[in-house]
């Protein structure tokens, strides 16, 4: 575990046992404080993870720079598309965007600037990339954040229930439902929701807006409601797909814990069934789930591309898709970097949080 930058999704890899029988401390009273040592160890561990994340971020930066150079299409031609421009103008634009430099020089410049948060200027929007991202980020965060909270709570809760009553009718319905939603293409679900709940079909009235984040005609609290109204369908779509994944993971990791001896111990102590579940089984089963949740949140941000496209949500996903077709290299690169960083960030967060939840790891 310690040598890996991403937490393994597998239970086996996550449940690290101390293999040596000789514990760190002999039975007698010991002089040194185990707590301070473990804190130091934790800090070392966390620092290692952060360093690993930094390396990963750099790797992503490199990739995002080079991968998208492969996309066919000369950005300058795209920018000038159809207009009459002189060769000098084109040369000037190439200079402006640094496209006349050798690739490696472009790269070093890019890296240097990226460090200061400067990802260049968007070809199509003529604005600093970072501004465009900053404009779109809140919308994406709002959407994915809301969905994240809902599907996490829902998935964990239902997953825990489902596993606890493994094989019961409730479990079967739960799992069947989750598996079905898990197999449904999210964009399709979104379209169906639009057809039924937004356009309205037959007797169903169109309750929700067809897209966008707000109607633009409201202010204050009305605006909040307006945005909430617009959020309902996209959030449902995201939740439907992601809660299923969470549920399935939670269920299977709890099932893994179900036969464990420590649960028998807890029961033997006279704990009520729900206490056994809440205090013992779920915290242990949460460990692999938490890892997955964080990793998922990272990918959910990227996965929002589809939902944002279907629901015209003014977020990063739509921006990415727009940028790709130009190709608006600086924007594409930066967005790719943002998406991958989101995953890395979440991974690292999971790694760093994990030892706080599971004392066996990292100390």
């Amino acid at each position: 575990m310690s040598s890996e930058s991403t937490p393994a999704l597998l239970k086996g890899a996550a449940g690290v046992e101390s293999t040596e029988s000789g514990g760190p401390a002999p039975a007698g009273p010991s002089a040194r404080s185990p707590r301070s040592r473990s804190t130091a160890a934790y800090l070392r561990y966390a620092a290692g993870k952060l360093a690993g994340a930094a390396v990963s971020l750099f790797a992503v930066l490199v990739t995002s720079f080079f991968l998208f150079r492969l996309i066919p299409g000369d950005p300058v031609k795209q920018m000038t598309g159809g207009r009459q421009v002189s060769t000098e103008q084109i040369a000037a634009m190439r200079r402006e965007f640094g496209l006349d430099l050798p690739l490696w020089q472009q790269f070093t410049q890019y890296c240097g600037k990226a460090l200061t948060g400067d990802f260049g200027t968007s070809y199509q929007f003529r604005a600093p990339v970072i501004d465009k991202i900053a404009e779109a980020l809140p919308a994406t965060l709002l959407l994915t954040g809301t969905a994240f909270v809902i599907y996490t709570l829902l998935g964990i809760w239902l997953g825990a229930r489902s596993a606890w009553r493994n094989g019961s009718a409730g479990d079967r319905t739960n799992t069947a439902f989750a598996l079905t939603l898990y197999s449904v293409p999210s964009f399709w679900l979104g379209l169906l929701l639009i057809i039924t709940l937004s356009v309205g079909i037959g007797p169903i009235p169109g309750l929700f807006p067809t897209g966008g984040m707000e109607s633009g005609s409201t202010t204050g609290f009305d605006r909040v409601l307006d945005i909430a109204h617009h959020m309902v369908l996209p959030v449902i779509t995201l939740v439907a797909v992601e809660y299923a994944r969470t549920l399935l993971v939670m269920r299977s990791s709890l099932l893994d814990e179900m036969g464990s001896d420590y649960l028998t111990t807890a029961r033997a102590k006279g704990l009520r069934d729900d206490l056994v579940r809440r205090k013992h089984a779920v915290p242990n089963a949460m460990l692999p789930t938490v890892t997955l949740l964080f990793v998922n949140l990272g990918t959910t941000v990227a996965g929002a591309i589809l939902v944002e496209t279907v629901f015209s949500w003014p977020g990063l996903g739509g921006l990415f898709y727009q940028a790709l077709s130009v190709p608006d290299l600086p924007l594409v690169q930066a967005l790719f970097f943002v998406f991958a960083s989101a995953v890395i960030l979440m991974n690292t967060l999971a790694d760093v949080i994990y030892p706080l939840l599971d004392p066996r790891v990292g100390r």
Partner: protein
Amino acid sequence: MTTAPLATTTPLLSAEALKVTFPGRRGAATARAVDGVDLDIRPGEIVALVGESGCGKTTLARSLLGLVPPTAGRVTFAGAPLDYAGRALKAYRKRVQLVLQDPSGSLNPRHTVYDAVAEGLRIHGHAGDERAAVSEALSRAGLRPPERFFLRYPHELSGGQRQRVVIAGALVLEPELIVADEPVASLDASVRGEILALLLRLRDELGLSALVVTHDLGLAWNIADRVAVMYLGRIVETGPVEQLLTAPQHPYTQALLSVLPEAEGEPVVLTGEPPDPSKVPSGCRFHVRCQVLASGEAERAGVAEACRTVDLPVLNGGAETQVACHWAAACGGEA
């Protein structure tokens, strides 16, 4: 006693000043798992290596098989030092075989008994009749008729049967020596005896030597010719079974024997956990737990200071009774 006088023959396998260390994880000190061991195993001899958990028994056994390269010292087999080059090592591994503690784990759950036994033959490109060789090995290991077992999977066998299959897999290559790491520790008491009897019989019939690693002194009494008691990477006492187990000289051996359930006298329960191979104390490595030192008896014998400071020499690998203890050396005769 059926064994020939052993001391005269040259050793088949011997460790000479063998040391194995493991680098400490995350800045911890290196673990001196085996810290200077001389041990000879003569043809036809069964040597029991006993000691507490974590004292380096398995590591010693594995390094004898060339599975862990020693950090210092060497292993010689039939007079020649072990060659760690691929081909030579492979040839060596035809002659020396390993039997592990956990028979369930030692068998690939997806291989049939036949495959498991024939594996060695296939690795070494056996020229003869594979089937006949497998049959014979299985019957020797007490699985008769062998055909009945050919196509069973490990999970269809009982623990004892599995261990027999493992032994058959070792026998099929007609080795000269078997290293058995806790061969019966995970087996039921009722089955244990049968497996041990099998080892004894193989020695008698095939002249096989064996190094049996165990923490169970009763096992040594059951089958071994000679016992080596290991403590924290060193052999602290060695000698013929009868002598060593009935009249132990090293306080550690005495303590081990005293805690056996049916032992007479007050058990000497050593306090604390087995010490850490990454922190070997100076002087006699046992002195921190030594009951003789603690009771002041060593003081009376005038060796207390030596116990704490003077490192003891490595015992040679020979068959005679030897003990690495200042106190035992001081009052050797009377013990």
